[in-house]
């Protein structure tokens, strides 16, 4: 009973906040609605029994990806009114995307009601006794090893790409070299002299 209530609560919230993400006038509000959507999606994952995925959804999407989105919409100061004026230009592409998405949804519902893709035909059955994070672990690093390593490569490319695109070395800054500062000893920098009266200091 409670599960059912929770499901409808989360589901309605996901759809609602997704709609508000699109319709919000202010881009920052859009991102915040998106975060709420992620949150409720995590709730749905939890109800489906995927507790690890649920936590990951919050850690990665809410904790990292959405922070980046917020940085972008807050910092880059994009003129969204101007962007919106290009609506007519992108409308055909938008319509195409709508058609593709609609087709995908029809196929998904069709396949689901056909019922041939039962969950019991999966390659690896879900183990009952161990937590699902452990069950995942036993598969990813052995059976799906190549995909896992490929994921590592994707991350590597992402990192290098981000650096190439956004990193600009600044000229004219003097960077602190902590190593050098720590290496420096008093005798390198300080000189004790016995200064006679009435004479200048020889530097």
């Amino acid at each position, binding site marked *: 009973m*409670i*599960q059912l209530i*929770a499901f409808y609560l989360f589901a309605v919230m996901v759809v609602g906040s997704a709609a508000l993400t699109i319709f919000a006038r202010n881009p920052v509000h859009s991102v915040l609605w998106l975060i709420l959507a992620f949150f409720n999606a995590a709730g749905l994952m*939890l*109800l*489906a*029994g*995927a*507790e*690890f995925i649920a936590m*990951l959804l919050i*850690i*990665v999407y809410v*904790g*990292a*990806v959405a*922070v*980046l989105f917020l*940085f*972008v919409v*807050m*910092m*880059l*100061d994009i003129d969204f009114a101007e962007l919106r004026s290009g609506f007519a230009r992108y409308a055909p592409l938008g319509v195409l995307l709508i058609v593709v998405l609609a087709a995908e949804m029809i196929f998904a519902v069709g396949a689901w009601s056909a019922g041939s893709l039962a969950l019991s035909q999966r390659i690896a059955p*879900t183990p*009952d006794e161990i*937590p*699902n*994070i*452990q069950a*995942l*672990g*036993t598969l*990813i*690093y*052995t059976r799906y*090893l190549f995909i*896992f*390593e490929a*994921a*590592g*490569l994707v*991350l*590597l490319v*992402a*990192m*290098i790409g*981000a*650096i190439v695109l*956004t*990193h*600009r*070395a*600044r000229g004219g*800054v003097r*960077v602190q070299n902590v190593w050098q500062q720590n290496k420096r000893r008093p005798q390198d920098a300080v000189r004790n002299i016995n200064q006679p009266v009435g004479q200048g200091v020889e530097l």
Partner: protein
Amino acid sequence: MREKPLVDLSQYLPILLFLGVALAISGAFVVLPMIVNRLTGTAKPNPDKLAEYECGFPAFEDSRAQFDVRFYLVAILFIVFDLEAAFLYPWAVSLGGIGLTGWASMMLFLVELGIGFAYAWKKGALDWE
């Protein structure tokens, strides 16, 4: 449908309830003072009081200015390393069961990321002048 749920959802229900309670408490702390200072008459707003803080003079410019792109780079690097950590979590709990293959595959993964890290270091992406 499975008869037995994958996780013990009864352990998560208190968290949902806690979320409600915590929201109620925090919300009360925000709303109650507003009501109280309506009643006690402490709420006396005036334009100067409601102006944004700017060391005693009116603000010159829009406060939401453009920001340095380095913050953006930090956020991207964070996503990459966060995902890497996400791959480490299931590995850490199942290390006993996956043996040397699992361990070696993760080490290879770490080397891949290590290359990226070394590149970032070398390029100065981790520097904050």
